[in-house]
């Protein structure tokens, strides 16, 4: 018993990238353990999905035709039942918003430990070792799980996607879903964040984070954006506070941007922010903290107070600093 079971993710008719990343992570682990990689896809066009999921290294794709979209009450039951059949040592689930909506419950039902947001997994030394971050990505930790079985959620975009075609067995799994235990109903979806500008179209973004401190200080970065002819964007706390509209938010739950130049001002570089801007051509960080995770990503950096640097920068270009 040394197999790995991974679960794919889809939304509104499309498989999500995380599905192909979890194949890569799962194969690596299965190789270390000398076992098979089983992949499950639950709901939606499972046969179509199974064709796409038949990638190199996948031994079996289990299709479970239950519902159209993700519903955690269904997923929890199905994955628990499939787990009992496959009897893997490791259950891998993408650490997405939906993954976090059912993985902990599956672990609870199976009575096995769960470790979330892994950026590395290995069983090379016998027990499962998971690499994860703490304290806002300032440190990494190794977490050892001294148990035969474990549920691990894998951080999106940490593993490459497996692209090449495979030769998996596709097997339909007949789950027995207790409808009385389905106590939540997905009634629809809603797009948010339209509006005046599309930051994903901008060539140059001046992006501001919590380091700006007060709403009235936004004037300063607005003046810089004006001077540079750039578009203003932000990290999440600025939007949460209602200082800028949602369409300005860069990140996992906001927009993905790929400008030529991204200037991150007073932004720490939390993983959910980075998810939205790491594809920028040139990244510039202005931050007082030399250890801020954004520094690892930046091409150019100034370790200093933004309230000292930004006014100087505005003046360099003949603009007028409001402070």
């Amino acid at each position, binding site marked *: 018993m040394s197999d790995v079971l991974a679960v794919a993710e889809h*939304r509104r008719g499309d498989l999500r990238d995380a599905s192909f990343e979890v194949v890569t992570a799962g194969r690596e682990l299965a190789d270390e353990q000398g076992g098979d990689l089983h992949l499950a896809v639950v709901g939606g066009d499972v046969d179509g999905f199974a064709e796409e999921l038949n990638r190199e290294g996948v031994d079996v794709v289990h299709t479970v035709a239950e519902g159209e979209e993700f519903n955690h009450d269904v997923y929890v039951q199905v994955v628990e039942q499939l787990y009992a059949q496959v009897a893997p040592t490791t259950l891998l689930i993408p650490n997405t918003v939906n993954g976090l909506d059912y993985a*902990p419950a599956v672990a609870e039902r199976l009575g096995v430990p769960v470790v*979330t947001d892994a950026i590395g997994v290995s069983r090379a030394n016998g027990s499962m070792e998971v690499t994860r971050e703490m304290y806002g990505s300032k440190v*990494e930790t190794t977490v050892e799980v001294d148990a035969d079985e474990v549920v691990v959620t894998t951080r999106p975009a940490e593993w490459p996607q497996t692209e090449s075609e495979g030769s998996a067995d596709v097997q339909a799994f007949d789950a027995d879903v207790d409808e009385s235990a389905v106590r*939540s109903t997905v009634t629809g979806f809603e797009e948010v964040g339209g509006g005046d500008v599309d930051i994903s179209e901008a060539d140059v973004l001046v992006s501001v984070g919590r380091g700006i401190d007060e709403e009235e200080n936004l004037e300063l970065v607005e003046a810089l954006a004006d001077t540079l*002819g750039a578009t203003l964007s932000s990290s999440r706390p600025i939007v949460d506070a209602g200082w800028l509209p949602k369409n300005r938010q860069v990140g*996992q739950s906001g927009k993905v941007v790929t400008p030529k130049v991204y200037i991150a001002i007073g932004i720490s570089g939390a993983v959910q922010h980075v998810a939205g801007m790491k594809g920028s051509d040139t990244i510039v960080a202005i931050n007082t903290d030399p250890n801020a995770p954004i520094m690892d990503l930046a091409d150019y950096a100034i370790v*200093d107070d933004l309230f000292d640097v930004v006014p*100087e920068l505005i003046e360099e270009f003949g603009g007028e600093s409001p402070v």
Partner: protein
Amino acid sequence: MKILVTVKEVAEAEDDFEIDGLDIDERYLEYDLNEWDDYAVEEAVQIAEDGDDVEVVSVTVGPERSEETIRMALAKGVDRAIRVWDDTLAGAEMLDVGAKADVLASVVEAEEPDLVFTGVQANDDAFGATGVALADTVGFEWAAVVNALDLDAEGGVAHVHRELEGGVEELTDVQLPAVLTIQTGINEPRYASLRGIRQAQRKELDVQGLDDLGLDASVVETPVRRTAMYEPESEGDATVYEGSAEETAGQLADLLRDKGVVEG
């Protein structure tokens, strides 16, 4: 109606820090109310303010130091607080998701709330799993990453928005009793008023040990251990501009001119 809010005091690392063994050296840690829990507290307090007969109770698993944070929640309108701690918990190497869920479950069983609010994640260890694990342990329904809530208490349904990736929200109806993990941006957390802070001093803050909750030491025995902590090797090859603000701004200006961001 009763709403239970889980409140965690989290540690934040200062800009410069040292690691001592398996954790950041205590000298470089500052403690504060978990950002996501602040929004959870606010959501509960707003529901209490809008309705008759709603009690808001907070629960914290944490040492005496965390009472400062708990008083902050009380000052913002939480009616009474429970803090769970004893020598066994203090001596535990690491409370994993299952252990936290078991401890909190016994509080849920004693309090019998209609709703439990937790933060989406705690920004120190960022497991993001306690709320859903707790829901399943106590047999409540749940929803993770909730950024809008319209509560129909009489109908026993919470209409929620779950914030998915990429600017898409999922609309879901959840049967009560339920655990909702609250995302930032769902509301605007208030500052504690001076009056609130004074009143908080008189509110009940009940300290309970595992015994009081009918649990024994086995609850903290978990197979999950932290075995290493280190500063990640910097993959960055950033050019760091040195000098006064004027000098660094000048260098950055040159770069932006080079890149054609601005002319001249």
